[in-house]
């Protein structure tokens, strides 16, 4: 099987879906002639032309809202928000229109829309090019929120997102675009939205993560296995909304200890939801307090390299947190 990068997997998924379904089109800032600032759409403008890979004005509200309207009328838009930090002007349209259409119309109107957006820090992007925005949207029933961490999942989940009749927010860990590589079959496949993935089997404790932190979690788990003999199970959630509670509970039943990692800041972050699931339904399995390792509660990821490193969880910080929890 070919080994490709995360961003190549994303590009291939879009390429295949554009080829498969003439209703699929892409719009966003510089997605056409330039092939996207991260090159996620490279070559697609040349292959599918300007009516299917469409450069938009610098207007995120419109990029998303045009997508919602087109999706209502049965097209299959993939809207790119160039950085997750830029999604906020479209928040109203996502929350008040996309998420509620099916419900408010008693099932008459659907919004088969995908919003793709790179998120997260660690590339020197500074305050407005590093945000992790997932928790704003996981609070909104009617949306689906997906964050892949491997090329295999990125391709399979993005194809599922395009085919999903609901609005799907598809956040991509941009630090991993080229750093994360993996085997991806050339053949057609999809990965279902919903189920989490056991990224690593273990018995001593469970690490819950997604996106870049799921990738780091596996590295950290290998590190503590090698150095300390701690056997960590890693659950890559992949889909945050709807959440795979069964996977969370079956893992905690086995290990009894939970460490949740995300780079979004701690307070009201997505980790709180996982911790609540563990408290509600997994209380009797727990042998230790549920721990969270998250970005600190500061207003953004600072530009300065040392401050960015203070901010970001990384394999070493995760390994240290694993050791602490294992010793409890």
């Amino acid at each position, binding site marked *: 099987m070919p080994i490709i990068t995360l961003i190549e997997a994303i590009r291939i998924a879009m390429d295949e879906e554009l080829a498969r379904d003439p209703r699929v089109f892409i719009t966003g800032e510089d997605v056409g002639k330039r092939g996207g600032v991260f090159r996620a759409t490279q070559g697609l403008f040349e292959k599918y032309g300007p009516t299917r890979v469409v*450069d938009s004005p610098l207007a995120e509200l419109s990029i998303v809202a045009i997508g919602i309207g087109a999706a209502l009328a049965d097209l299959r838009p993939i809207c790119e928000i160039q950085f997750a930090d830029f999604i906020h002007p479209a928040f109203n349209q996502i929350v008040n229109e996309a998420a509620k259409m099916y419900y408010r119309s008693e099932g008459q109107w659907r919004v088969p829309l995908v919003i793709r957006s790179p998120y997260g820090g660690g*590339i*020197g992007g500074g305050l407005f090019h590093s945000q992790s925005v997932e928790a704003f949207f996981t609070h909104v029933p009617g949306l689906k929120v997906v964050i892949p961490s491997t090329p295999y999942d990125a391709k399979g989940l993005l194809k599922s997102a395009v085919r999903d009749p609901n609005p799907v927010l598809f956040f991509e860990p941009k630090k991993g675009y080229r750093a994360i590589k993996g085997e991806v079959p050339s053949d057609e496949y999809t990965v279902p939205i919903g189920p989490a993935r056991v990224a690593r089997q273990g018995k001593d404790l469970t690490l819950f993560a997604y996106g870049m932190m799921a990738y780091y979690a596996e590295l950290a788990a290998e590190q503590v296995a090698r150095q300390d003999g701690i056997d960590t199970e890693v659950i890559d959630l992949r889909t945050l909304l709807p959440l795979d509670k069964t996977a969370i509970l079956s893992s905690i039943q086995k290990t009894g200890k939970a460490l949740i990692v995300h780079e979004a800041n701690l307070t009201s972050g997505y980790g709180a939801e996982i911790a609540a699931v563990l408290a509600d339904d997994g209380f009797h399995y727990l042998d230790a307090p549920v721990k969270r390792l998250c970005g600190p509660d500061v207003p953004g990821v*600072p530009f*300065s390299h040392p*401050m960015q490193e203070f901010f970001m969880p990384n394999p070493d910080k995760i390994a240290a947190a694993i050791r602490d929890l294992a010793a409890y």
Partner: protein
Amino acid sequence: MAAALPEKATLLEWYRQMVLIRRFEERSKELFHQKKIGGVYLHLYNGQEGTGVGALAALRPQDHVITAYRDHGIAIARGVDPNRIMAEMYGKSTGVSGGKGGSMHLASREHNFWGGYAIVGGHLPLAAGIALKAKYNGDDEVVLCFIGDGATNNGYFHEALNLSAVWDLPVVWLIENNLYGMGTALEDASGQTKLIKRAIAYDMKAFDPMDGQDVFEVHETVKKAVDYARKKGPVLLESMTYRFEGHGMSDKMYAARVDEMSRFKARDPITLLHDKLCELYPDIGPTLDTIDKQCEAVVTESEKYAENSPAPTFEDLTRHIYV
């Protein structure tokens, strides 16, 4: 009839600012490639110096300036210390934003320089708000808000301009039309490519588009606009200019625009001013050479200052969250 030319000392100051900006940007590019300026973004002002310098020369210290992410040149022209700008771009604690902001997020309250903004268009309503303060308090102040052509197509632009017109706010909206919003050409993003016509939608005062490469024309027009805004209300301006570099460091598309680039480079704002000065003052050559050298030295000093400044500490990460 054109207004009388400013006096020699003023023209030399404009020349100094424009050369300093150019040298600063050229050095920044080198330092970015050397990875001394970190991160993945750097948006250079090369080519647009005539607009920034000419416009800011029309303001008084109590007036206000706000711009987008292409902000180094504006900060320099406003008198912000190049050492502290460079330190910011290095992410050092001596930077104007303590290293938290980086190149797109310069700030200097003492200069009424309300900063650079990475979120396209996001600063426009802020400019209106600052102008509201001036009107509310009856302060004799004007806000000059720089806007990229790319920002004219989002809701912030419409809402901010409309509101400023309804409330007669003392703000000069200055579109720096460099023909590209990131990599996308103006005509691929704007239904109306004559951006100055947007003023019609708000029944707003507008002047004819300026030649952004001509610092004299920019200065004269902005001065008129500032006077108008101070007395009556908002004005829309459009400066026709060009960036000699890409949108940012990752933009390689600009290099292919050879004809367009050579057309604008033939009208380099610094060369135009240099030639005009030589025409007005035939023996000024050595003075200009001295200014060139001084600017080079200022930039070198800023690099040293940034190099030798301390990195932020862990404690800095959690400072300035609440007042």
